[in-house]
């Protein structure tokens, strides 16, 4: 088995364990590349079906192209799509125009997710976390319990081995199921290339007003997500670029770099 086949097989197995273990589960979907790989893997696991709802936490700051992609993909994949917005926060004026990115991300992503969880009472969320994204994510488990406050107790995680996972949670708690944990950014791209998985066009380099070509490596809210200079306008070119780069994937995501240990603080509060 080659590397991608092995990663795919392990992820499918995790999807099936999650679906068996939790009758109430959902899959957050950001429409980013990893998220679309998740959709694809779910369809592989369940023979062309996605037997649980897919959740878009809409910050209302998505790029217009992302909304277009969302509506197209929901139809294409026959998704049971739920869109959730933290309306209270938006009505109170929380936004990038007036607040710092950590606060906004917390309110419009984490709090919004908490609201959706409280409303639908899901016991498990399938997420696209990868260990290579950030050091704090390196310590994740495939089935990672979160307490009622969404906190991740990384100091006392249950053991996990031999394909056996933590599938029991208490009242108000939930499990984050993370089928992409072992995948790297490069694996994701190789797989997108191999399977011809549809993704938003913003990942590909396009010339800007200054004539320089840029592309997005990671997609988030438009006020705080910046493209990086790149010539890569096809998947093959992106892969070639990644094979030589030493710049981190989330370099263009402002909320990570707002202050020291920003990512750890966000994650401890329930950010994915």
């Amino acid at each position, binding site marked *: 088995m080659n590397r991608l086949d092995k990663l795919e097989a392990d992820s499918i197995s995790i999807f*099936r364990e999650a679906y068996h273990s939790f009758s109430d589960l959902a899959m957050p979907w950001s429409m980013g590349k990893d998220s679309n790989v998740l959709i694809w893997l779910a369809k592989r696991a369940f023979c062309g079906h996605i037997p649980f709802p897919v959740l878009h936490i809409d910050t209302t700051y998505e790029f217009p192209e992302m909304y277009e992609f969302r509506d197209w993909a929901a139809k294409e994949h026959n998704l049971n799509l739920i869109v959730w917005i933290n309306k209270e926060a938006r009505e109170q004026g929380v936004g990038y125009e007036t607040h710092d990115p950590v606060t906004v991300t917390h309110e419009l992503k984490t709090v919004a997710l908490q609201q959706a969880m409280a409303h639908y009472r899901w016991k498990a969320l399938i997420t696209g976390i990868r260990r290579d994204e950030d050091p704090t994510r390196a310590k994740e488990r495939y089935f990672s319990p979160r307490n009622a406050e969404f906190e991740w107790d*990384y100091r006392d995680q249950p053991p*996990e081995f*031999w394909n056996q996972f933590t599938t029991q949670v208490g009242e108000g708690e939930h499990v984050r199921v993370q089928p992409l944990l072992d995948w790297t950014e490069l694996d994701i791209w190789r797989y997108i290339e191999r399977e011809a998985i549809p993704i938003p066009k913003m990942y590909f380099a396009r010339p800007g007003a200054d004539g320089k070509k840029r592309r997005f490596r990671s997609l988030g809210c438009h006020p705080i997500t910046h493209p990086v200079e790149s010539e890569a306008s096809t998947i093959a070119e992106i*892969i070639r670029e990644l094979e030589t780069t030493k710049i981190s994937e989330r370099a263009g995501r402002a909320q990570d770099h707002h202050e020291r240990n920003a990512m750890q603080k966000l994650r401890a509060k329930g950010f994915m």
Partner: protein
Amino acid sequence: MQQTHSELESLRLVVVGHVDHGKSTLIGRIFYDTDSLPHGKLEAIRKACAAEGMEFEYAFLLDALLEEQEQNITIDTTQIHFRTSRREYIIIDAPGHKEFLKNMVTGAARAEAAILLIDAHEGVREQSKRHGLLLSLLNIRQVIVAVNKMDLVDFSQEAFEKIFQQYSAYLGKLGVRATHFIPIAAKHGHNVLHRAMQMPWYDGPTILQALDSFQPSTSAENGPLRLTVQDIYRFDHRRIIAGRVESGTLAVGDEIVFVPDHKRSRVASIERWRADVPPFKVRAGESFAITLEEQIFVERGQIGCHLNAPCVEAREWKATLFWLGNEPLRLNQNYELRIGTQKLTARITAIEKVLDSETLEPASGARSEVGRHEVAVLRVHSRRPVALDNADTVTSTGRFVIIDGGRIAGGGVVSGLVYPKSDSGKVTSANISWTEGEIGREERAELFGHTGAVYWFTGLSGSGKSTLATGLERLLHRRGIHSFVLDGDNLRHGLCADLGFSEKDRAENIRRAGEVARLMAEAGLVVLTSFISPFRADRQRVREMCAASGIMFIEVYVSAPLEACEMRDPKGLYKRARAGEIHHFTGIDSPYEKPLAPELVLPTHEISTEECLQRLLNHVMSRVSRLQTSRTGEEAVLI
């Protein structure tokens, strides 16, 4: 020439060893030497160290979490990648602190090779040995022992040889041989990538050379076919069996038997969404979705095998287990156990030995529990038949985990099973009897793990019969003994609602109670009855009834005298009897005939309830349990 990413072979490597023996430093150094660090990372950490007045350490490259830097210990496994020209490595840094053994196991269980670090200056320590033992249980056979911090012992060959002798003797006892022993100084990069001039006496490989000599885990493709069934889906009007190929190869048209039910069918198709061509084969390591020719009963937990090499079906097996739970693993207590996708109730029926990780000798004294971080050889008994393998035949179906408090608390490796030659369509394992039709008492006892029995509590009103019976029921329940209390309350309201308190009705009441108790005991329960049952003849009749059916009848005389009972008078009945409000009240105006030869006498006016319960519990556990215990006369502990 570098291979492209998809062709590049990868190998999962775990780094273990006693706390502070230099695991994170070695990994940091490997990253530095193989130029695998993200741009600017090294400079950023050097700068941060300078700003806080700390000496730069390679370990900081890994210890990205703030808390870890404060405590200077790695609290969890991290996973990162580096590359050599030979292959990619996925490196799992496992913590060395004893408290974090569960994280070490979590990381190491997925590794194909290991580096075990020993500090040259400190020598072989407790966790050095425990980690060696766990690597052998986790079936990791490619091991480099790196003797680190050689700079602290002046690069002395003698110091290295001493550790080499001592530790290879230890590994030898485990049947493990380290592939390489390498003297290094990770902090300075000696013998990591570059050969160290300071140790001219060493002519073996460097760490990276040794790693590149390893092989990715030998595929289970050539083993016997094992399909673990994860789920049955009904999509698009088709019944799809989904799971994972643990071992062997499956092709369309193969005849498969699903153990433990032994139903057979041929594979009609292998399903794969958006495949260019429908697959004809699936191999070990792949997830599968298949349809069958016949609509046989298949459910999650079963293991699909080829007919000529089935797995074993058993209720009892031997295992070597490591325990990570906060609470000890207790003998004879029911636990949730998972093997592949099977979930079962099982218990430990014998703890044969608990290994001292220092000496690998059995720890002294008989044990009724396995403590946190201990390794034990024991026997496991399951309520129902289980499909499984010896770990040395098929690794992934030859091991199990035990759940305690909702968490994975231990892992066991199966050995000593005897394989059937082929699947003959019926159960072939030696420790299972199979009869069609009527289920015998033996089979029920086998299923429950204990025989049925009647414990007949007799004594005056207020003597403590119900207190003891219900207390005992609770204790038995916790130990997985199926029991039930029959008393006046649950019989008089229903089955005996037509009876009064005349001598004739009281006799009939006891007869019916005896009959119900006997039936329930035949069904496999330990029945605890709580009736005054004052007359010898009535009790004798129940005893004979049980004897005729081969049911154990134990007469328990709760012997508190009238004065004591009348003083307690919990329901105020004596008072009412003395006042003439109740007639035919035993001890007042109706006689109580003391048992002449009761099996147990419990003077509740002289000894405490706890003491009575302890005696009862010991009696029940030693009489009804079918589980062989290696010791006799051991007292069950009252919990």
